[in-house]
């Protein structure tokens, strides 16, 4: 266990990077995913088409490919960003597609009757989305979004492949010195599991809090 004590500082810092990436990319993905869903169910064909294309693109390209492209191709195109922000942006864009799918399944749980009732009361489209559709869709989407957030947290590990010093890459570094892969990566895996557990429990609590009384 000594090996963890000696390198506790860098490990904790790396864990901090992992958590920070997950939190920032997670929040951004939820915001962007909501916008994409709104476009997807809007009456404007161009917006609907763009949103559909967005989701299809990100669902059908591996995250690792996107990360490598962003890290190596963007600087070539003259866009210079530090590694970690680049990875966060790619993660957010990628997971937003899955968030959008989760929210869309939530939207489908809101009956057309309620939407029609809101139109009949004189709500504009935006008002009826904001006050009737989105609040109910988000409630139904809490658990699916939680699952996307867990996947996102696991996916932060891929950032190691493009040089971001997060938990997996720090574990890898430690292993190069200590050569104890089973111990080191088991501990890293347990930490990821703990993060997933926290997110899952959090989603469960939120779901209970916002559940519609029946």
């Amino acid at each position, binding site marked *: 266990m000594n090996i963890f004590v000696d390198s506790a500082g860098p490990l904790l810092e790396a864990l901090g990077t992992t958590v920070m990436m997950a939190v920032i990319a997670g929040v951004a993905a939820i915001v962007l995913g909501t916008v994409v869903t709104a476009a997807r169910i809007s009456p404007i064909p161009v917006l609907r088409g763009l949103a559909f294309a967005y989701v299809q693109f990100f669902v059908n390209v591996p995250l690792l490919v996107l990360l490598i492209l962003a890290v190596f191709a963007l600087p070539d195109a003259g866009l210079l960003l530090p590694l970690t922000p680049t990875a966060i942006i790619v993660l957010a864009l990628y997971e937003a597609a899955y968030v959008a799918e989760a929210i869309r399944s939530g939207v489908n749980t809101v009956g057309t009757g309620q939407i029609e009732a809101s139109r009949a*009361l004189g709500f504009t489209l935006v008002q009826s989305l904001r006050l009737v559709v989105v609040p109910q869709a988000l409630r139904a989407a809490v658990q699916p979004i939680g699952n996307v957030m867990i996947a996102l947290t696991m996916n932060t590990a891929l950032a190691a492949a493009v040089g971001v010093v997060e938990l997996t890459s720090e574990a890898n570094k430690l292993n190069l010195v200590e050569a104890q892969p089973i111990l080191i990566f088991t501990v890293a895996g347990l930490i990821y599991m703990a993060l997933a557990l926290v997110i899952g429990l959090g989603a469960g609590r939120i779901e209970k809090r916002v559940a519609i009384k029946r």
Partner: protein
Amino acid sequence: MASSSTGTSTPAGTATAMVQLTDVQKHFGSHHVLKDVSLTIAAREVVVVVGPSGSGKSTLCRCINRLETITSGTIAVDGVDLPAEGRALAKLRAEVGMVFQSFNLFAHRTILDNVTLAPITVLGRSRKDARAEGLALLERVGIADKADHFPAQLSGGQQQRAAIARALAMKPKVMLFDEPTSALDPEMVSEVLDVMTSLAGDGMTMVVVTHEMGFARRAADRVIFMDDGRIVEEDTPADFFDHASSPRAQAFLSKILPH
């Protein structure tokens, strides 16, 4: 008909057209659903619409507040032609209350919130005023004690009364009811019809799609019989139910009236 575009109502006492449909045609694709429908409904008038399933009754209601667009013809509410999509249309919809067969209450909001949401959002009323008026309306439909409940916690009859209160909160000029009691257990039908009868007594202009003949006899000024997208017959309730003239209306009545 002069200067109808201003939308100001004519002096009280004059029999004015609250709803006027002129040569309305409605298609769903190639399916012709409303055929040459012309209909004038006076202010304070209560019109009951009957007819076999699929005859276009719901479509008629939905066209009056433009939940459906019409193919041709005109529909005017209180002298104003229905505007195209947009803010003006939203404003007009706010003047036409609609009650659905399936209640359609907002499931994530309390009953009182259901009633106050549109006045606050659409009319810009203050929260305080909207709540006071909302509570008064819930009182009127007999469910003030359910103000803080959620829709799914209410019976069907209570939900439908809440839906009526929600529509009334907009102070509509016309109320449309599309089979408001068809989804209810029999023992709850009368509590909803009682509310509607009292509304009719207060002078609300109403279009009611229903097969509740008791309500029609009690509250309606006129019964309209639709078949295959056309208005086939209109008459007072007494005359319609006792001696409908067209064979189609007679055939329809023989099916729904108790023998």
